[in-house]
């Protein structure tokens, strides 16, 4: 297993449950199956462990189960069989109020960015902290710092649609990272971007992994995977058919 990276995130304010979970991998799946229709499986018997600071590519053709796997990890779907532990919480047993609490520690990035076009860049990123009840001042400074990380702090008052596709995806990444999540999930984050911008985006998420976040990026873009020396999980018809590492041109 690759990269049990040192967790560089501050744990001083962590509650006991979090501290206890710190020693465990934040993402663990054991024999997970998911079916949307009787007789057809979106995921079959998938096991997976992603440690803190780990960066994993999830790949496979469309319909291989990548999106389903990510949805299970942020509790948008429930498994039909198997166990999923995210940050020590059993996804199958999460009750209503526990789902939002979990999601505040899991950042998600989508292919189509899912930004609010009528809100400014800053407001789009701030929404993560708003729902967590951060003060306005704390929100402003954290949003500013995160936007600086992704190189967009000078555009913070603009509307997302005034920016390029790559910049919009960086807003989405900033929104996912601003809450300092323990886990970052990205579903085809570069699907709408040209190759140069794609590298940018992946590097931003690798930087998050370097800071201790467990990162899973689903992509069908093999040329992208080949440029990095990172763990790769290949899915086909809902099964993991290959576990390998990218040849690593750029890591």
């Amino acid at each position, binding site marked *: 297993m690759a990269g049990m990276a040192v967790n560089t995130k501050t744990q001083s304010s962590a509650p006991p449950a979090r501290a206890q979970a710190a020693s465990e991998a934040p993402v663990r799946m054991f024999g997970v199956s998911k079916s949307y229709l009787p007789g057809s499986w979106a995921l079959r018997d998938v096991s997976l462990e992603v440690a803190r600071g780990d960066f994993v590519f999830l790949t496979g053709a469309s319909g291989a189960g990548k999106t389903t796997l990510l949805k299970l990890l942020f509790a*948008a779907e429930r498994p039909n069989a198997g166990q999923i532990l995210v940050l020590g919480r059993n996804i199958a047993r999460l009750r209503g*109020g526990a789902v*939002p609490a979990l*999601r505040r520690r899991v950042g998600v990035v989508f292919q189509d960015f899912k930004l*609010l076009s009528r809100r400014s860049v800053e407001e789009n990123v701030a*929404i993560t902290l708003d*729902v967590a009840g*951060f003060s306005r001042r704390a929100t402003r400074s954290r949003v500013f710092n995160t936007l600086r990380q992704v190189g967009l702090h000078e555009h913070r008052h603009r509307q997302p649609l005034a920016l390029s596709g790559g910049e919009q995806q960086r807003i989405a990444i900033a929104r996912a990272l601003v809450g300092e999540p323990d886990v970052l999930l990205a579903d085809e984050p570069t699907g709408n971007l040209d190759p140069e911008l794609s590298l940018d985006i992946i590097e931003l998420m690798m930087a998050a992994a370097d800071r201790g976040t467990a990162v899973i990026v689903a992509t069908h873009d093999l040329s992208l995977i080949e440029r990095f020396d990172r763990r790769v999980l290949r899915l086909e018809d809902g099964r993991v058919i290959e576990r390998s590492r990218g040849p690593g041109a750029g890591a």
Partner: protein
Amino acid sequence: MNRRVEMAAVLLRASGENLRETGLTGGIAVATIATALFMLGAFALVVVNMEGLLDAFGRELQVTAYLEEGLSAAEAEELAARVETVEGVDFVERVGKAEALERFRAMAGGGALLDGLEGNPLPASLGIVLRAEQRTPEGMAILQSSLDGLPGIDELAHGQEWVDGYARLAALLRVVGYALGFVLSLATLLIVANTIRLGLYARRDEVEIMEWVGASRLFVRTPFLVEGFVQGALGGSIAALLLFVAFGLAVPELRYGLAFFLGNAAPRFFDAGELVRMIVGGAVLGVGGAGLALVGSRS
């Protein structure tokens, strides 16, 4: 604690944005609530005034016993004394023939109508006032049977039948008011629910994103409930204001019609407590409609 205050501030901001963005549909919801509450309020005003008058009737209700012609003053005096001993009677007022004519003349406005009269056609009478607890149909019946057959009394007259009819009308209006209130409230509730649902639909992307980044159900829902509350309270306030204006304009215009229903009693407007209840009622309708919209769009 501080977190909660911050959360409340964030929610308040979000609610404000919700309200700003509802625009026309929000205006329609407010207008609907205002219209429904205006109609209900107008109806309630009529019922309240009629019931107020009933109370006044109750207080003033007196029985008049007309005396036979030719009864001497001493006999009338004796009769009055006997009537005062009847169960439930508070006091008895003697009205002589001359006094009756005088009162009639005053009521008729001192016109020439009575000038041609030869003699005084009006009988002497006893005005019998019952004790408050006795001013009921039962009390009236007891009095009636006690006075029956007393020599010197020609006829008993009282407004009980009229009062009973009036009370039945007021009660009927109250029932109609409840039914009307129910139907209007239901219609308003559905309209508000639809308005909020439109808002929810317009903001579904935002709601979806908020859920992904970990917004609690309360966090997502509160702005919509606040929106319903504000729309309702605003609708209620507008209805109260319109009623006040309409009342001020209509009462002088309708004074003859009102005199028929209310007699000499001055029509009254809602007091502060009743107005507050109206506004709170609007707010409840608004929150209820929002709740309905949120329950209906769980998915």
